[in-house]
Structures are given as C-alpha cells and as structure tokens.
C-alpha cells in the first residue's frame, strides 16, 4: 500500500497534549489504555481490554499490557476511528473545477488544507479518516484522496476515480444537459481511454470508481455501465438500494449512503438493513459542510432505528469503509500493526448519547472533550 506522509503530523500539531490519558510510564513512544470495552472492529469486543500503542501504530490489543508499561484506565469504550466516505468540508470548493465536467486526473489531495478549522469538528465526532472527493456535480471530477484530518497526513492519493452519474452532474448551461449526453461522454472516455489514463486504470481494475447515482434508474444504469467496462468500487447515493439488493449484490459494487436528516424518508435507513442482510458492503458519507459534523453518526443511528444492528453500523463506519477503499491493511480495525486511529467513547460507539471523550490519530491525542476532564485540548 502506498502511504504518502506528505505532511508530518508534528508540523501541523505540537506534541500531544499532556492530558489525563497521555503516557505516564514506559517508552516515550509507547502507551497503554484500558477501557471497559474495546471494539476491535472485526466483530470482536474485548471486555476490560487493553490497547497498546507504539510509534503511532497498534502494538497489541488484548487483556493486558506488556510488563513494565503502565496502563491508564479510561472511562468508556474504545473503537476504531470512523472513516467518512465523502467529505470535502475543508476544501472550500477547491475540489470543484466548475469550468469543466471532465478533469479525470485532478488530484483532490491538492484541495486538502490540513489547517482548515472545519476538520476539528469532524474529529470531535470520532472521524479520523476522510475521503475527499471532487464535487458531486462534476462527471469525472478527479481522483479521490484519503486524508487524516487530525494529523494532516495524506493517507492515499488516487484511491478512486470519482464519477458523477446522477442528475446533479447534468447542467442546464454546459454540455451535457441530458443523461444521453452524460453517458455518451462517459462511453467515449472509457472506450477510447489512453493507456495510463484514469479511465484505463479503472477499466483494468487498478483504480476503483466511486459512482454517484441517486434514483433507482440512475443506480441501474451505473451498475450496467460498471459491468460493461469491468469497473470495481462503489455507488454513492442509492437511497433506495434496499429495492435493488440483487442487482447490487451481483455487481460486486459497494454502496455509500449519503447523510440522512431527521425528517428524511425511511428508504436509506431501511436500505442499510437490507444490504447488511444480503452481505452487500456499505459505508457512509459525512458531508459535514451541508449536514454538520455529526451527520454520519446520526445517519448510522437512524439506520439502527430502522433495524440495522449496532455491529453493522460500526462496521460501516470502520472496517467495511477501509475494505472498500483498499486500505484495510492499515485502517478500519484495531489490529496489530495498524495505524493507531481510535476513539474513546463515553458509552457505546454507535449510541448517539455517547461522546468522543478522546480521539487518537496516528497514536497521538488529537481531541479531548472538554467535559472529559478539567484540561483543555491544544486545539
């Protein structure tokens, strides 16, 4: 896996705050925390589990810590940091090349401002990894990038070719103005893809695609298009995916649900349960810019209200998301060797009444809830 630590976390943030949970003993780069529960993220839950972090990576997860390393007890449950599958909050529209519908090689990582104040709000909701995407109204707006908003690290560039295949990408003022025109362009780009271009990479399977599609009709077309060109990746949108389970399952594509607002219809919420039952992978977008930083958690909770089990909700925000992005070797669960991105929740991680009391990214404390102690965080 390609990890490009473009920005060293130390540049963006000073040393971890000396808060209540900072290392008290042992190696300067090692610490151990014990929580009432540790959610590994692969379904395992360790009661009174201990997580040991060394040099920003997880060294062990289990019942105890190595000898000589003091264990700090925290009040709450530890879970992997959440992965938001679409958010460009901190891009300030720099992810939207409005003059063109096709900018397939545009690198969204270049729209990432690690110091943008909006990121801190996402981190405070337990989100440690974000997929930055081009704007939804482009057709091939560029290449998605995985970033760590708390550390400023660019985790992976060019993770997926982002394709807008919904009505949002159809304009009244520039070509194309129709689905027929949209697909004619896409067809031309994929059929005539030059070697090494993102379209050719997507056809060969070297690059994933993230295909935005909303109505059942749009989803059916996107799936057919993916089959035609052998594309792998996910559909973003698909609020009525629950009606198209067989189609989605046969396609091998995953689904990324958009945030639900309180008054939204129940389709998405029920779709999540249906996809879970069928074994179709799904994750969530956060879109904090339009829905607020807690939108992803709220959406997962709404899905739980409509029958999705807590484990399924947690997986969608952690392991499944990492799998869909191809970064499960480093992200998504609390397993040995993975990046130490995790959150101490005041209760169950998928419970809306829980607060993220402490957020660690790359093994460093990057957020501490003001109510969790008398200390203030460095941010």
């Amino acid at each position, binding site marked *: 896996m390609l990890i490009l630590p473009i920005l060293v976390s130390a540049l963006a943030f000073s040393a971890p705050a000396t808060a209540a949970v900072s290392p008290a003993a042992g190696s300067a780069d090692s610490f151990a925390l014990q929580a009432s529960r540790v959610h590994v993220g692969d379904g395992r839950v360790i009661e009174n589990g201990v997580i040991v972090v060394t040099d920003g990576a997880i060294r062990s997860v289990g019942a105890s810590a190595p000898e000589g390393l003091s264990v700090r007890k925290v009040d709450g449950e530890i879970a992997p940091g959440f992965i938001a599958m679409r958010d460009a909050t901190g891009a300030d529209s720099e992810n939207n090349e409005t003059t063109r519908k096709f900018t397939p090689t545009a690198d969204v990582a270049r729209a990432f401002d690690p110091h943008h104040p909006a990121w801190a709000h996402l981190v405070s909701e337990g989100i440690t990894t974000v997929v930055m995407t081009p704007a939804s109204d482009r057709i091939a707006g560029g290449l998605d990038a995985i970033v760590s908003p708390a550390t400023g690290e660019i985790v992976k560039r060019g993770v997926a070719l982002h394709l807008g295949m919904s*009505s949002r990408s*159809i304009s*009244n*003022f*520039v*070509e*194309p*103005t*129709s*689905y*027929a*025109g*949209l*697909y*004619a362009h896409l067809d031309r780009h994929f059929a005539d893809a030059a070697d090494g271009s993102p379209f050719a990479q997507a056809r060969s399977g070297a690059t994933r695609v993230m295909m935005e599609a909303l*109505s*059942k*009709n749009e989803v*059916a*077309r996107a*799936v*057919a298009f993916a*089959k*035609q060109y052998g594309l792998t990746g996910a559909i973003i949108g698909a609020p009525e995916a629950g*009606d*198209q*389970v*067989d*189609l989605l399952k*046969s396609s091998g594509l995953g689904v990324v649900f958009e945030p639900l607002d309180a008054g939204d219809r129940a389709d998405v919420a029920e779709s999540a349960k249906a996809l879970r039952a069928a074994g179709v992978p799904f994750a969530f977008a956060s879109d904090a810019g339009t829905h607020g930083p807690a939108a992803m958690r709220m959406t997962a909770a709404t899905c739980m209200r409509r029958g999705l089990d807590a484990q399924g909700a947690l997986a969608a925000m952690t392991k499944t998301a990492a799998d869909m992005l191809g970064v499960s070797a480093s992200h998504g669960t609390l397993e040995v060797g993975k990046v130490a991105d995790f959150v101490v929740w005041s209760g169950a991680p998928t419970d809306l009444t829980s607060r993220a009391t402490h957020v660690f990214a790359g093994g460093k404390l990057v957020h501490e809830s003001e109510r969790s102690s008398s200390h203030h965080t460095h941010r």
Partner: protein
Amino acid sequence: MISILTTLLLAPALQGPALLASSALFEHPSEAPLQAPLQATTRKGSQAAKADGDAPKNSWSVFADKVYTSTGSTLENALVVITDGKISAITPGASANDDSLKATTLTAGLIDASAPIHLGFESVEQSSEVTPSISMEYGVDPFDPRWERLVRSGVTTAFVPPLNRNVVGGLGILLKTAGPETLEGRALEGAEILCGAIGGLPSSGNRPASGTPNTFYNRRPTTRMGVEWEWRKALFDAAQAPAEGAGKDVDILQDVLAGKIAAFIQAYPTQDIRTAVFLKEEMQREGFGEIRLVIDGAAEAWREPDLLVRSGAAVVLPPMPGQGRTVDQAFMAANTAKVLQDAGVPFALSANDARTEPLGIQAGFAMRGGLTREQALRAVTITPAQILGVDSRVGTLEVGKDADIVLWNGEPFEVTTRAIGVLVDGVLVVDPR
C-alpha cells in the same frame, strides 16, 4: 381488418409521391429496430428472470357484454381467451367461465403516440440544437410512478419523444406501460422515429438575459426562421454527405430522407404545421428524399386539412386544452378530430401523462366534437399502432395479438366509465376483482 391505408388509397386527393410517402409510413422496416436497450436490470426484473416459477400469470379468460375490437366489428357477449400473453381465441355469443374476469365492455389497450413520460430537461441534450443520435433510452425512467398512472388510465403502449427544446431532439422510444422495470423488458420493436420540433419552444430561452453571453444558448436559434433553418441545414448536409462513414447523426438523417426513419415533428399552430409540410415538400422537390412525416401536437390541424392531405402526413393531436389554447398559443377546436376524419388524414389522440384528462377522456372529447365511438377508438388504438409501426402486435383485439386489454365498467370513453381492469401482455396489471 380495414386499415387506414385502404382509406388512404380511396382518397382521390392522395396521388403521386405523397401517397407513396404515406403508405411507407405504415410499413415495418425490419432493418430499423429500436436501439438495443440498456442492460440494466432491477430487483423485480432479475428475480422474475431467475425464477421462472414466479413469473406472473399471463393466461386468462375475459368475458364482456360487448367487445370493441378496433377492426370495425363489435362482438356481443364475447369471451376472450388469453394464452401465454397472447390472444388465443375470441368467441362471441359465449358465456363466462367460472374463473373469467368480467367487464361491461372491452377494448384493446390504448396507445398514446405522444406520451412525455420522460425526464424533462434531462431527456434532451441542449448543448447542440441538432442531436439525431441521442436516444430516449437514456431519457426515460422505468421506475417513474407516472407509468402506473398511465396504465391505470388504460394506456398499455406509449411512444415517448424527447422534450421539445431541441430542433432535432433524437430518437424516441416505444414502451409497454407495465411489465419488468427495465427498458429491455418493456421496449417494443416498431418503426424507428426521429423526433424534433418546429415552433417557439426550441428557440425559447435562447437569449442571454443580460450581460456577456457565456453559455451555448447564445448561438442557438432565437426565432422560428432559425429553427426551420436548422432543420433544413441538417437535412441538406445529410443529403450532401457521403453515404457511409459520416457519423451516426448523418446516418440517421439520411435514413429520414430515405423514408426508413419517420420524422416526428412537433408543430402546434398553423404556421408551424405549414413549415413542417413545406420542409417535407422542399426535400422532395430537391430530390433529397421522401420524408415520412408525423406532425405531433397539431392543434390547428383543423384549419388547413387539405394541406395535410396533400402532404400525406399523419397527425398526433395534443390533449384538448382547457382554455382552448395549447403551447405556442395554438387554438384547438373541439371538432379538430372530426375535420381530420372527414378529410381522410390519419390521426391519433394523445393525453400527456394522464395527470389531467386521460386518453379515454380525450377520445370522449373527440366524440363530443363529432367522431363516432368506433372512430374515436381507432384514434387511440389501431391508428397510433400503425403510425408507430407496431400494428402487427398491438392496436386491435384479434387472435395472435399481444393481450393488451382494457376492461371498462361501461361504454368506453364516457365520463362515467372507468378502466376497472388492465392486462398488459396477458398480465393482470389492474385487477377488476
């Protein structure tokens, strides 16, 4: 079966090339099927495909006091037997079986020759004013709830043209209104038909409101003259282009000039109907070809019926407007259909998306304007089937045809009569029981 063609052959006004053109209109060019529909499947579609045992029942018998066949005959106390989606027997003077569906009257499923069940602005590619190869397979949504409304009104086949914002908008699509939620599951192979418009709509909105024009609208036509010029230029260029290798758009326009693809042109007021006819005649005069012309939305067709007879064009009338005026400020008289009937112009009625008065009521309006019930019935069944090139499959109640049948609770097209049951391809879509 008395066909419209026979009627035309008897009409003395129809001599020479115009007659040839109009007879070509009703042939079924086997080389011109609809474009291969999208390979999309849906939950219901894929389930139906994989589990044959779950396929919907498509064999029934239907008994009615009176069966209007659209072939000129009306049968009393008739039993219609449907086997595997096709009509297998029609027996007058019969009695109902125990398990027969029952209705007061039956007609063939209605056919709307101009049903805009499309995605509106997203159905037409406005970045160019002439887009012949844009296909409506991308402009319709099989999940659209308007299909259900249409089928509940008794319409079982619909032709969907693109929105009228382009001069040459693209190839329309012909679909059954019920069945699998996929285009491939619903498409009917008929005549290939290129759609476009003449009149005020393709040029509307083409002026920048203020400031520097920065969109494609500022080079599009802003007048009726400009719209007609676009048509003429596109056809002229196609006539001059080499027969092979000039691209999909030119190929389609060449097929229009060769009469293989019908030109379905929207024109509401007299001046636009004239322009469509003059365009056809100009192409004929110049030796470019014989256009098979269908004039859609021809609200003012009643004003100059002789012109239509001369042109050999078929006509699709718009729904009767509430205040007398259609778009483009055309005035549609109550007896428009009657005038066309008397002149011998083949015409179909249409009803938009059935949100207001459905197609059956449009037929009722036409009767109020002077048509007999039989004539009105033909205008919503066999005539549109002929115009669309699918009269071998739909449009009448005859043995061997698709079992698209409407069960009415009274005489069809009366305001107090309702479609209580609808069968599409032998599947009971609206259940009368």
